[in-house]
Structure formats: structure tokens, C-alpha cells
């Protein structure tokens, strides 16, 4: 009988500027995760994947997985490793766990991710972000912090497709309002279109609410097989139907699209993931996409096939990304409002899709049976997509 990977449970700790050590954050997330699955004991977990990119720089801790295992009381016998794909680390961990449990090389894997980015002096993370792009060829041009890159991307989208600042603002309004009552979000406030339109400038045309914050935080989830999951839960099973991770270049000089707003690598990732999951874009009822910037979400709804290329701005400003719209996107608040501790983000997204498909999300999409998560990493160097469903692929 084939083994089908499911996400059994999970959660995140409070995200924001946290007065805590990175290992405190991993402990908090581990507790939330196990509290979500009554009956699951640390001793039942035979694998651990830890997604973190900045533990090595900001916490002076490489080979992070055994340290996290120790702090969480885990004694992994199948896998115990760290993975670093920056913003997609959590999703990458879930993809790897899927392969391990489906192949029979692991049974119950905890995938956790976390970052402690705010150091005692705040300059350091802004400086250390020089490591997030090609150090010698892009960081040297001052492209470590992403707003300039996404400013260029937004301008290209405006030039080629007529997208307006109001379209970008509509994304921040939708995502902030999704998070307004999310107690673990970094930003918990309602936002009006007027506030978003009159916010202080970051790098034109991007203003304050167009950019996700820098965030401390962690998240954790459990990936296992459907047969094992049935021993621990009566909730609907949420299957990992398909996935893809695509990198066609790591540098703007070799960017794969016609221009910066044409994300060919994301289209390839979407095609592969849909094919493997045996679904089409019109089957997706809810999505968590990588809204590191508002312009990212505008382009992502296009490249995922929720609307035509170039119509992402109108799709977002006509409320198609809100509850009742064509595909509600970032229903817990996304990176813009929940925050973005790089390695934890993909797990946060997977947990929100799991809750949506189990009918227990805060902003519930009625009848959600297929959900999708997406990350981009670095200066648009890589795209990672996972598709979840309440039935396995047949």
C-alpha cells in the first residue's frame, strides 16, 4: 500500500520583535505544535528538519538541528538536519519530509523553522542581509535589503501592464485586515486604503505597508503518513498532493523572464506542482503566496494562473483575494502582517492551509478542499510551491 504524506498539526509562536533567544522561539513553536496534536509525544517523533537561514549569522549557531532536538527533547533516528533556502526554508523542509515519509525512510517528522533577527544592536540584521543575495555580485551593489529590487520590479509591472499604486495598496489593506485579530501576528491593526496610500515612502513607488517587516519567530508542524495520522487525530486529513522548487538563475543579470515582472521560473514551478498534484489553477480555493512586497502578490496571482498575466493588479483591487473573492490569498495576514522570520514562513503557510482545509481557520474559506502555498527566495532566485488537498492524489 502506498504511503501518502499528510500534515498532522502545527502552529507558530508570537511573531514580532521578540525579547527571547532563538532557542526560546523554537521551544515556544514546538509546544504550540504538540498542543495542536493531543496524544503525540516527543518520543513518537523520529525525524527533525530545522529551517533557518540566519541562525549562523545572528545567533552564531550552525548545525542547528541537533541543538533544537536537544531543546525540544527529541531523539531523532531517521533524519536530523538543518535546511537553508532563505524565505522558502520551511516549505523546503515540508517537501523533504514528504519524500522521507512516503519512501518509508521516516514515519513522523517535525519540520520547524525559526529566526532571531533582531540583535542587541539593530544595524546588524540590515547589514547581514547582504548575505541573502549573491554576495560578490549583488550585495556589493547594495542589494542585500530587498526594497530596491522590488521597487524596480513594481516599476516594470506598471510600465508593461499599467498597474497602479492603488492596486498595491489593495493588497496591504486585504492582508492587514486578515491579520487584525490574529493574536500571533506582528501587525495587528486594520488598515484603510487611504492610510495605505498616504504611508511614508520606502523606495518609490513602495511605501511602508508595501513591505513586510523584519521578524523574530518560529513555527513547527508534523508531517507523517495518512495511516499513522489516523492514530492521532479525528480531524480531516490534509494531504501533501504535489510540490515543485525551481531555480533558473540566482542573479538579476541572468533573470529568466523578459523583464523583472515576468516570473518565468514561478510559472515553471506552478506547472510542475499542478501536474504532480493533478489539479488546475481553478481548483485552488485558498492560497498563501509570498507577499514579501505587495507587488509580489500581484505577480504571484498571475503566475499561479488565478488571473491572466498582467491582470494581477485588477484581480487584487477588485477584492478577488478577499473572502468571497475568486481565490482568497494570505488569509492569516501573510508576510506583510504576520511577519517573515525566513525559515518559519513556509510552515506558517502550510499550517494556515491545513486549518483552512480542516474548516478551523480564523478567516475560513467555505468549502476549501484544495490549497496552495508559495515562496520566493532571495532576489527572486527561486520559487517553491506546495499543493495540499483533503484527498490523496489518485
Amino acid at each position, binding site marked *: 500500500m502506498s504511503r501518502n504524506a499528510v500534515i498532522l498539526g502545527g502552529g507558530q509562536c508570537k511573531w514580532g520583535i521578540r525579547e527571547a533567544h532563538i532557542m526560546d522561539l523554537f521551544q515556544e513553536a514546538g509546544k504550540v505544535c504538540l498542543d495542536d496534536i493531543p496524544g503525540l509525544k516527543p518520543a513518537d517523533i523520529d525525524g527533525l528538519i530545522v529551517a533557518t537561514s540566519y541562525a549562523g*549569522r545572528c545567533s552564531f549557531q550552525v548545525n542547528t538541528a541537533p541543538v533544537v532536538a536537544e531543546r525540544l527533547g527529541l531523539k531523532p533516528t531517521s533524519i536530523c538536519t538543518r535546511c537553508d533556502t532563505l524565505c522558502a526554508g520551511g516549505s523546503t523542509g515540508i517537501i523533504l519530509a514528504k519524500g522521507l515519509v512516503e519512501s518509508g525512510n521516516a514515519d513522523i517528522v517535525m519540520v520547524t523553522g525559526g529566526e532571531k533577527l533582531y540583535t542587541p544592536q539593530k*544595524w546588524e540584521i*540590515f*547589514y547581514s*542581509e*547582504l548575505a541573502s543575495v*549573491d*554576495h*560578490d*555580485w*549583488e*550585495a*556589493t*551593489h*547594495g*542589494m*542585500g*535589503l530587498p*526594497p*530596491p*529590487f522590488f*521597487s*524596480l520590479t513594481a*516599476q*516594470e509591472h506598471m*510600465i508593461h501592464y499599467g498597474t497602479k499604486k492603488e492596486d498595491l495598496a489593495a493588497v496591504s489593506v486585504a492582508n492587514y485586515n486578515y491579520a487584525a485579530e490574529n493574536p500571533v501576528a506582528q501587525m495587528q491593526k486594520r488598515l484603510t486604503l487611504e492610510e495605505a496610500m498616504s504611508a511614508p*515612502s*520606502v*523606495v*518609490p513607488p513602495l511605501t511602508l505597508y508595501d513591505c513586510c517587516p523584519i521578524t523574530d519567530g518560529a513555527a513547527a508542524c508534523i508531517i507523517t503518513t495518512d495511516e499513522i495520522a489516523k492514530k492521532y487525530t479525528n480531524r480531516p486529513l490534509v494531504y501533501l498532493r504535489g510540490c515543485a522548487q525551481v531555480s533558473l538563475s540566482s*542573479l*538579476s*543579470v*541572468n*533573470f529568466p523572464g523578459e*523583464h*523583472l515582472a515576468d516570473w518565468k521560473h514561478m510559472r515553471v514551478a506552478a506547472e510542475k506542482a499542478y501536474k504532480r498534484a493533478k489539479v488546475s489553477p481553478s481548483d485552488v480555493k485558498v492560497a498563501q503566496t509570498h507577499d514579501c512586497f505587495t507587488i509580489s502578490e500581484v505577480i504571484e496571482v498571475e503566475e499561479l494562473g488565478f488571473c491572466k498575466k498582467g491582470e494581477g493588479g485588477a484581480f487584487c483591487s477588485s477584492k478577488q483575494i478577499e473572502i468571497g473573492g475568486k481565490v482568497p490569498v494570505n488569509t492569516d495576514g501573510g508576510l506583510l502582517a504576520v511577519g517573515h522570520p525566513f525559515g518559519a514562513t513556509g510552515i506558517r503557510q502550510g499550517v494556515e492551509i491545513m486549518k483552512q482545509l480542516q474548516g478551523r481557520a480564523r478567516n475560513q474559506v467555505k468549502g476549501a478542499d484544495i490549497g496552495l502555498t508559495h515562496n520566493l527566495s532571495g532576489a527572486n532566485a527561486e520559487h517553491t510551491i506546495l499543493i495540499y488537498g483533503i484527498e490523496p492524489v489518485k
Partner: protein
Amino acid sequence: MPVVGIPILDNLYPVSMDLWPVEAKEFNKVWPFYENLRQGRFTTTKCKDCGHIAFPPRGVICPACYSENLEYVDLPKKGKVVVLSEEVKGVPLGYESPLIHAVIEFDGPVKRMISKIVNCPVGALKRGDEVQFVVFDVPPMPIEKGKAGTITAERVFFAFEPVNK
């Protein structure tokens, strides 16, 4: 001056905090690129077997055919601005305000790249304007050379600037 909180790092060079490349021959096989920069040349590697031109330059192999038979060729030093971003506030440590970036289009083997724009006030440059290659000095770094002691390795880097009309 001692490093605050870590006095043992006084007068030491931590490469893990250096925003510039380690360009020296002893640590980097694309060192000829930086030597060429010093002579005002903007170059990259071309494969002598398959003809593929890669940017950034490759130190060991051609990414298209894996041949090790590479040579340096010159790239155009002028290009046109496609779009540009101007960051005035919140410029990261190590850079001066305004921090300007542009997507630059070239008539050559490398079609487009994003570069820092220097010697340019906010609002001076626009889409379609011509920019030119410029080389500048960056801080030198120490290299320990055994019995010869510590030498100082000079370093340079490049950006683009507006072409004065």
C-alpha cells in the same frame, strides 16, 4: 579601538562581516576580473570551446559545457537605463544616501544587469538615459602570508554613473 563587547577582536579583520569580495589571487580564481577592473576594463569569461559568455565571470568551468578552457573578453562600458530605484532614507550601513539602482540594458553579450548608480543626485537620471562604467577603490584587507608576515591586499569595485551631456 576595541570592538564593543568583544575586546579580543581589537584590530582583527572578520571576513564574515566584509561587504566587499575577497579579490586576492590566493582566495579567488576570478581574480583576473578584479585585475582588469584596476586597468579600467569591464570583462568576463568566454569559453574557448563552446563560445558561451558567462557573467559573472567563472573561475573554473564554463557553465554551459563544463570546459575549463576560459578566456577574458571585454564587455560594453555604456548602457541604457530601463528602470531605476532611488532610496533616500534607511540606506544600509556601508552605503551613502541616495542609494540608486538601475536595470541597465546593453548592446552586447550580457543583455541586462542591475547595478548601483554613483555620482548621481536624486531625480537626475531617467528611463532611456545613458550610463557608463566606473571603477572605484574599496577598503584593502589583510592576508596572512606565513613567514612573510601580513600583506595588505588592495581592492576595487565597479558601478555605473550618468554620462555627462
